């Protein structure tokens, strides 16, 4: 499986990952190599097999919805890159 530059840029866009022209070239080669190593999976007979999402036999877990102590607003906001009152400040979403 050989990726094209356009595919690499498209994947980066899906991930919202900024990418330089050098990285496009580097990732195109490296990811193509890695994907080639995935071809072996076509030899695995998985006809009719269920997928395993996690390895231990736990079903949905429920617990009572009980209120307890939680972090203060200041603790939650302490790592904010930019804060305005009790809000995380970001650049305008709509331009």
């Amino acid at each position, binding site marked *: 499986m050989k990726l094209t530059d356009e595919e690499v840029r498209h994947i980066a866009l899906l991930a919202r990952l900024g990418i330089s022209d050098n990285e496009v070239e580097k990732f195109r080669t490296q990811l193509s190599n890695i994907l080639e190593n995935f071809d072996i999976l076509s030899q695995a007979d998985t006809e009719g097999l269920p997928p*395993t999402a996690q390895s231990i036999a736990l079903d949905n877990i429920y617990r009572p919805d009980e209120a307890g102590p939680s972090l203060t607003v200041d603790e939650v906001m302490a790592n904010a890159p930019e804060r305005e009152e009790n809000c995380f400040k970001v*650049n305008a979403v709509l331009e």
Partner: protein
Amino acid sequence: MKDLHRLTIHESHALLKEKKISSVELTRAVLKYLESIDGKIRACMRITAEQAMVNAAAADKAIAEGRCSPLTGVPAIIKDNMCTRGVTTTCSSKMLENFVPPYNAHVIEKLNSVNAVMAGKANMDEFAMGSSTENSAFFTTRNPWNLDCVPGGSSGGSAAAVAADACIYALGSDTGGSIRQPAGFCGVVGLKPTYGRVSRFGLVAFASSLDQIGPLAKDVTDAALIMNVISGHDKRDSTTVPLEVPDYTGALKPDIKGLRVGVPREYLVEGMQPAVRKAIEDAVKKLEELGASVDWNVSLPNTRFGLAAYYILAPSEASANLARYDGVKYGYSYRETTSMWESMEKTKQYGFGAEVKRRIMLGTYALSAGYYDAYYLKAQKVRTLIRRDFDLAFEKYDVLVTPTSPTVAFKIGEKADDPVQMYLSDVCTLPINIAGVPAISIPAGFVDGLPVGMQFIGKHFGEETLLQAAYAYEQATPWHKQKPSIA
């Protein structure tokens, strides 16, 4: 008495309990040695000396009041992907360089509840993605046995610190081998518990269906003592299993007569270092001598799909988990723009290193429209095949034995530019995470002056059998007593 920093947990505990030493003395000795040596091995992201001395004094008070459990007052180093309230937790990433968690991980709460002492936070591969610590955004940790070699990864700082006697024990995390492979490379004991045995609350997420926290220790007894404290159900991690936690030290009997041991031939892989293979074969013969019944020709036929399945599943989960680093609520944030989207994209571009970006790209691709069935769903079905291989094997065998890694520690830089070669270093460990079973790596000899790791694999929640087999082998061999002399 040997130098205090060289003690094991059980040796420290005996002395603390009899009040022959205090935690303040022990902690001071560990910090002094750690500070003297860390310029060479670079195991620590940060040494937390001040807080450690406060904790040590509190431990001494607890001991005076009669509360002295095995980890009380004993200094540890914690991998820097476990949240520590008020202490920077970087994940060895620029993204979290200045992140100070407002809460403790569950395992840290557990350690605090018995007055353990944290001496520092360990260097690692960025976001636990890597096998050498070369992916740390800050520096590479060195192998105490040979400073030109990698310590393994991603818990390389934790393993190197334990091997160098720069702490008494450490915690690491293991998604595809990140506890066991560095334990093997550094000649210490490393245990990856069954998925669901230890809470992941407060562990920075990499691949949530594979991640598990576990001990790195100087011997098997210490690994059991750590498991006693960190295991158990936590309502904040609903994948933890509400099973009672046994006293794991009960498994430490040097008797394995009749233990059914299987050697899966697929793990003696092509490209394996012949001397490593020889060391493992000698170790299995030793198990036979000790009374185990060994089947040398077990087959886990789907092993060959493990690497590919893992490198689809883990990056897919990572690409979802790491989407949270958008520069809004915490972490590095690129602000030199008026565009929200550009801010988000540049935050990731400058905040993440090459391997993390590579895996985000890989995972995003495997989950994207048109490829989901071919990659992600296929890998999940292969996961079923691999799990069934283990289920079948454990009907006939109590433990399986493999090398921990196909080679001993490699040179720094040797594989740094070749991701596929680097990924192969985990080929013996990652099927275990795919199946969710527990496994332990213990020292099993030396090749060219570098330690060889032997891996025991057990069935789900079979940690006691692993510890028993590992303990019996350890007590019959000299490897764990050998220490590196750091030039």
